[in-house]
């Protein structure tokens, strides 16, 4: 099992992501954004969190033109599995690989805390180890996590089971920290090989750090 992790100038979660996947037994490689290829043995490509290009212009807007992104698009088209976490989710929406966009949080604050999430659809490789309705506790840390999609797009997400996770309280009742449409925290594409979420499962791998609910999420990708 090989996990390739993208690194742009300003990415800062690549080593946490590497540590998380290696703790699950995967081999990992960090790929600098200037690379025009991704390793051919890649089983999962992760676009890690951080502040690529300082979030200049819009979060993820400049990263989408990095040399490596052509290879990422080609990999996506071939059905390769891609996971975008936080800034990685923003990059994937900017690149048009995932639907919607991430706006400034409704109350304009940077939010950094553990937040509960409800599993909306486990009919995909990412969340296959969880059940629909399960509640997980995963850290969020973002300024631009306010997911927006228009009504037509939202209907499509619902019809295809593309809404992965929504924000909730510990009992599973809807609780929206950032203004996201329908409290959406993560989505996938229609073909269910590209996944994006604002919360950080790679920061929830050990109970001593507050939660190990990220283990069951990332394990979904493991062979």
């Amino acid at each position, binding site marked *: 099992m090989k996990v390739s992790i993208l690194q742009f100038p300003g990415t800062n979660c690549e080593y946490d992501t590497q540590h998380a996947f290696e703790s699950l037994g995967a081999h990992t490689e960090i790929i600098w954004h200037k690379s025009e290829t991704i390793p051919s043995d890649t089983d999962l490509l992760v676009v890690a969190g951080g502040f690529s290009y300082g979030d200049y212009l819009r979060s993820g807007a400049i990263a989408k033109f990095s040399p490596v992104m052509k290879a990422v698009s080609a990999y996506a088209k071939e059905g390769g599995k891609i996971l975008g976490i936080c800034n990685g989710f923003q990059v994937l929406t900017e690149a048009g690989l995932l639907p919607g966009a991430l*706006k400034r949080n*409704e109350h304009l604050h940077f939010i950094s805390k553990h937040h509960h999430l409800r599993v909306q659809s486990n009919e995909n490789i990412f969340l296959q180890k969880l059940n629909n309705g399960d509640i997980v506790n995963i850290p969020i840390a973002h300024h631009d996590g306010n997911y927006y999609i228009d009504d037509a797009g939202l209907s499509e997400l619902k019809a295809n089971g593309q809404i992965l996770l929504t924000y909730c309280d510990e009992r599973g009742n809807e609780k929206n920290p950032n203004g996201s449409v329908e409290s959406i925290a993560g989505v996938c594409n229609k073909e269910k090989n590209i996944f994006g979420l604002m919360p950080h499962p790679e920061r929830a791998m050990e109970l001593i750090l507050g939660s190990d609910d990220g283990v069951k999420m990332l394990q979904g990708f493991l062979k």
Partner: protein
Amino acid sequence: MKAIVNVSLKAGVLDSQGKAVHHALDSLHFNGVEDVRIGKQIVLKLNENDKEKAMADVTKMCEELLANTVIEDYEIELV
């Protein structure tokens, strides 16, 4: 030639910054403000004299990078 590009959130997309500024104006007793929308202005200095060509180029820049057309509209002024 210069191109002045104004990028703003589409009508119907909630502008949280605009809302916060509207509240602040209210609290300063500027009560005649009905709505506030905040955008950004990008000024490009072009080495192009053909207005039509410049407009076509800048439109492409907006579509590809300067605006995220999922949530934003843009207006281009050439001066």
